[in-house]
């Protein structure tokens, strides 16, 4: 039995190593692919991702950047009635995991980096890109208290895999919800340091442990291991955003209380009941990353939250910064989240901004998620407005490279 377990472990380690090698080894055609093709989109309706619409624009892609003027020696893309929009930015990517989504053997794993978390060749990344998502900010899952650091990825590249975006800022991810304590129980016997004796076991304990680590980082409380506190100090110094996975109103309340005590800025993830404190959130300037929508058939959301499908609309109208995410349902469904946010009251322009420039800014990717002169060339060409289900993807450009091209998809009128 024991040998079998070891063998499985060994095979797992080997396959992980193989995946890692594949991810780290540049493919032989890399050099050719780096020579980015220049493109000019003419006569397209441009949605700039910042709320603006230009119904007859020319946008060029050259050397990985966008230009709002034609460039020479470029392939011209001219499709009647097409829309050009920034690629969607999934701010709370939860896909492509090779194993567990969090290091659940400890409560605080701020040193875990999402860069190593996912299989970059996972089909979920490709699926996301096929639905117009060009950036996935991958986060470790909220299965323990502080789950680690995020990593932004190009959702799909010509090399046939997702690739980390160099120098992308990383946020620290924590959870104030049911998930970090669920399944934990006090030890019946044996040392409390055993990994089987995980704390905390209640919502109170969750908040208490988080408070302890931030007060330690602040120097208010004596720290046990100073080196581990660096990521928390980054948060306290405003160098790194703290993203908190919270669902119920009580979690939102606890998060805001903790933010006040430690004097730090937070971003709320999930936040199904955030609409109940929308005025406070607006006043404090606390942004939220919403989604996915709860199951409308049952009306019961994560952590038994009360469904309010107009959550995004109510928050936006109150002045809260809102980003949309497909979260656990997979980045493939981000476009659908946007469509249904429109159904539930957001304007199309606001919904698109909430999937492009807003999440990009929240993740420190300030040159992505928008079509402006000089921005990174992450754009998607659609047959109609990207937030209509009748539209189809025609071309996906990631970092200046054409990743998918369906402009040749000829409409065939049938009898």
């Amino acid at each position, binding site marked *: 039995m024991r040998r079998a377990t070891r063998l499985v472990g060994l095979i797992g380690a080997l396959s992980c190593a193989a995946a890692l090698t594949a991810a780290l080894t540049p493919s032989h055609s890399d050099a050719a692919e780096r020579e980015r093709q220049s493109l000019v989109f003419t006569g397209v309706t441009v949605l700039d991702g910042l709320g603006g619409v230009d119904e007859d624009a020319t946008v060029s892609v050259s050397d990985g950047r966008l230009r709002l003027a034609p460039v020479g020696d470029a392939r011209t893309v001219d499709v009647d009635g097409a829309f050009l929009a920034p690629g969607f930015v999934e701010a709370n990517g939860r896909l492509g995991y090779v194993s567990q989504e969090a290091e659940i053997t400890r409560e605080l794993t701020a040193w875990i980096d999402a860069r190593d978390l996912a299989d970059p060749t996972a*089909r979920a990344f*490709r*699926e996301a890109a*096929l639905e117009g998502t060009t950036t996935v900010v991958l986060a470790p899952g909220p299965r323990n208290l502080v789950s680690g650091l995020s990593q932004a990825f190009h959702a799909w590249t010509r090399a046939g895999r997702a690739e980390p975006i160099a120098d992308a800022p990383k946020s620290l991810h924590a959870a104030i919800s049911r998930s970090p304590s669920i399944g934990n129980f006090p030890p019946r016997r044996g040392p409390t340091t055993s990994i089987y004796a995980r704390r905390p076991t209640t919502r109170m304990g969750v908040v208490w442990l988080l408070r302890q680590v931030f007060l330690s980082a602040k120097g208010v409380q004596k720290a046990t291991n100073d080196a581990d506190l660096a990521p928390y100090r980054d948060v306290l110094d405003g160098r790194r955003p703290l993203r908190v996975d919270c669902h119920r109103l009580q979690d939102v309340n606890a998060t805001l209380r903790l933010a006040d005590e430690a004097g730090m800025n937070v971003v709320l993830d999930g936040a199904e*009941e955030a*609409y*109940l404190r929308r005025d406070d959130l607006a006043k404090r300037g606390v942004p939220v990353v919403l989604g*996915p*929508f*709860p*199951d*409308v*058939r049952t*009306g019961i959301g994560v952590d038994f939250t*009360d*469904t*309010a*499908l*107009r*959550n995004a609309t*109510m928050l936006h109208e109150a002045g809260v910064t809102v980003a949309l995410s497909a979260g656990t*349902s*997979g980045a493939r*469904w981000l476009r*659908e989240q946007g*469509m*249904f946010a*429109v*159904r*539930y*009251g957001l304007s*199309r322009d606001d919904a698109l901004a909430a999937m492009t420039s807003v999440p990009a800014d929240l993740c420190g990717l300030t040159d992505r998620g928008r079509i402006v002169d000089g921005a990174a060339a992450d754009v998607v060409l659609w*047959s109609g407005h990207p*937030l*209509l*289900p*009748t*539209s*189809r993807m025609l071309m996906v450009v990631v970092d200046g490279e054409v990743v998918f091209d369906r402009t040749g*998809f*000829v*409409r*065939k*009128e*049938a*009898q």
Partner: protein
Amino acid sequence: MSARRFGMVALAGLVGAVVAPSAAHAEDFVLQAGTVVTADGDVLVDGGSVFVSGGVVKEIKPGLVNPWGAEVRSHGDAWLLPGMVEAHSQGGLERANETAPNTPFVSVLDGLDPLSPYFENLLRDGVTTVFVVPGDATLIGGQGLVLKPIGRTAEEMIVRRGAGLKIALSPRSGTSRMAQLAELRRSLRGARTAEGRQVVDDPDATARSPRAEALTALLAGTLPAVMACNEPVDVANALRVMEEFGLSGFLSLGTAARRALPEIAKRGVPCVLAADLEPVESNPETGREVRRFLAKECVDAGVPLVIQANEASPYGMRSLWYQAAVAVSQGLTREQALRGVTVNPARLLGVDERVGSITAGKDANLVVWTGDPLDPASWVDHVYIEGELVYERAKDRKLKRLLDGISLGRPGDDD
């Protein structure tokens, strides 16, 4: 429009907006809308007037006119469409399959929950006819019913009894395809023998044996077979068995069975497409993944398009209108896509003389949409079934609650 006149009774307080139909038909009236799509070939963009009498559509005229002198119900800029027809569903059933593999004698009549939220959600999505049938996990799963999604008993809801007997061609786990087919043939042969014996020996034997009753009706062609086919080979087998035993009916396809569409076209057997209209197929040898566009393949093959809702997608959002929009994104015309959720499924289910289009002589199953039904920003405002107003969005308290969530007032304020 007084509430009393239409006998509006809230269904056990579940939905204020869903009202039970009164026994007597409403009097004559004229329904007017800015855009009328009959699904029978006509799209009246400059307004249309539909004269309803005795629960039946009597006449349709372009323009906002009333030569009939009846009460006018005007819906301004709204769109008027026939109620959509869901061709294949397990909605309203607690369990879709018996654990025993061969149960031709069971009927969804005995397992149907008329108060299931499934039915009221159909009204919210503009569906007025649904075929509820057992699932695919058995060999012969039982009998389905064509229903309207309104009523307190299954009997009240019935549009067509004996609408189909579910037969699954794909083997259950632990059995082979050969064994599945052998068992199916054995059952049918047994029924054929019983049928013969009935005449010779004991005329009352079949009447006393519900098992034989269903199979006898199947063999006589009065009960259609609903052949569930996951793989192309299942389609071939289904067509062979139908020919051997002289069965009529239609196929319900899994995603992989799309490869048999040319064969299905050749044989002229109707079919319902798989719920996932854009499955990803992976080549087992190369690992190459290709997304398939089923609605387009279906129309290209010359098979009449019949779409079902995709209950399996995250968050239950993929209702018929959404699926029709997806079909348009694949390159179909709007007319083709709309026929795929109205007249075509009505014909497949053998109820096209009553439902599926706004046509003189058919049931007045009419749905008023706030705008284009293929745009997620549009909502179903009013639903008429057989001339009765059965749903009004303005009175849909449950929808309001889902949209707005809870309010933090005093206890009881929220009711």
